[in-house]
């Protein structure tokens, strides 16, 4: 059976479920894949796919972005970042604009590339802007471990990492959010394993399925969720077995625990969540850019008319935001969900289904 025939069969299987259900994908890469492949339009109307707070760019608070912008203006700083942060608007500027004004900002593919830039520029201070969830955090932990071992003194980290399970806890415990099942992030789970979802599934009686990113993976993940629901079950399960092990990646987890400790973090749209961020343990504090450059915590200012908070929690669909496609487009984004490539609003805007055009 080829992929296409198999996909058709999976779709038919999904179409045979008649209950009204809301499933949430909590990974921005899922949001992108679902939008790009058109899955949302191909599943029947009784199966609603919501997009959750799984885009690390989108959930970075505006105050934190303002702090990054303040830092990159300091003389002698080279700020290294993943490409997606470049266009995210702070309260008055973005990294893209700062670069045009002369800030030295470099887009890298790997935190190890940032470390290499630090080695090559010993007279400059290289700061890595650490965003991302449990998948990306271990890669940054390795770069810190190397910086320490090689005594690279001009490298530091601005840690805006976020942890997924505490945010899921917030979503499940919010009575205004109806989520019947969770499409769990495949690559985060490759690190953290199944246990966090087992706890969530048991506590809130919601099925959770760790899912891969191919169209077939996502369809299979949806079926596994629907199947559990029809059986009245609420387990944590893995669709993405070729990559995700039940126990996760113990090497990555050990490294995260050795270098970081959880702390309260500010999420755009969700507010502060205890234990949902990662700060450097005291032995690694010398690599903390916020401490090194005495960066103040900058307050979040509300953005007028922007509903990113409601979008991130699945309370509204991007198209229900009053600014969507009017004041807020990928070219002139107001909120971060429109800026990030995998932000729910950008994905909805970019991959508008043919029947919803106007």
């Amino acid at each position, binding site marked *: 059976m080829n992929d296409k025939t*198999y996909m058709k*069969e*999976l779709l038919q*299987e999904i179409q045979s479920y008649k209950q009204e259900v809301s499933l949430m994908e909590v*990974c*921005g*890469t899922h949001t992108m894949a679902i939008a790009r492949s058109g899955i949302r339009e191909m599943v029947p109307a009784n199966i609603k796919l919501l997009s959750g707070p*799984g*885009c*690390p760019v989108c959930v970075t608070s505006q105050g934190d972005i303002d702090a990054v912008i303040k830092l990159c203006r300091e003389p002698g700083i080279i700020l290294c970042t*993943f490409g997606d942060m470049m266009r995210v608007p702070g309260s008055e500027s973005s990294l893209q604009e700062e670069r045009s004004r002369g800030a030295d900002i470099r887009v890298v*593919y*790997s*935190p*190890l*590339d940032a470390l290499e830039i630090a080695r090559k520029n010993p007279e400059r201070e290289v700061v890595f802007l650490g965003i*991302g*969830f449990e*998948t*990306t955090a*271990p*890669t940054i932990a*390795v770069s810190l*471990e190397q910086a320490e071992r090689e005594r690279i003194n001009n490298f530091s980290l601005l840690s805006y990492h976020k942890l997924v399970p505490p945010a899921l806890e917030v979503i499940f415990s919010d009575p205004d959010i109806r989520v019947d099942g969770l499409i769990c*992030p*495949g*690559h*985060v789970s*490759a*690190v953290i394993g199944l246990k966090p979802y087992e706890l969530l599934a048991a506590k809130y009686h919601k099925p959770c399925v760790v899912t891969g*990113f191919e169209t077939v993976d996502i369809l*299979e993940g949806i*079926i*596994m969720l629907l*199947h559990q629901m029809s*059986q009245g079950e609420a387990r944590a399960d893995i*669709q993405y*077995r*070729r*990559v*995700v*092990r039940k126990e996760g*990646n113990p*090497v*990555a987890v050990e*490294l995260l625990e050795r270098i970081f400790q959880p702390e309260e973090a500010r999420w755009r749209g969700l507010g502060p969540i205890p234990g949902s961020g990662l700060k450097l343990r005291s032995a690694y504090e010398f690599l903390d850019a916020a401490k090194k450059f005495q960066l103040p915590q900058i307050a979040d200012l509300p953005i007028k008319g922007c509903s990113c908070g409601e979008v991130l929690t699945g309370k509204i669909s991007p198209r229900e935001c009053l600014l969507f496609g009017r004041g807020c487009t990928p070219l002139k984004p107001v909120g971060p969900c429109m800026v990030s490539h*995998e932000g729910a609003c950008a994905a909805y805007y970019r991959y508008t289904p043919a029947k919803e055009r106007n």
Partner: protein
Amino acid sequence: MCLGVPGKILEIKEHDVAQVDVDGNQLDISIRLTPEVQKGQFVLVHAGFAMEIIDESRAVETMDLLKELQKYRELGI
């Protein structure tokens, strides 16, 4: 939130570095997070790192998912 692609390990080098092939493109990545990886195995590549070893044999069960579901339906469950 985390892009990852499968890459095949071509060569294990020194200092936790390995050369991988991603659809004909070659790059050096860190295998610090998958110390047990062997040449010839596939890994999930994210941000210049092997995040996990890919084991297709574990996927077979999911590919049989439909058959299993059809069986349920035939049984009227």
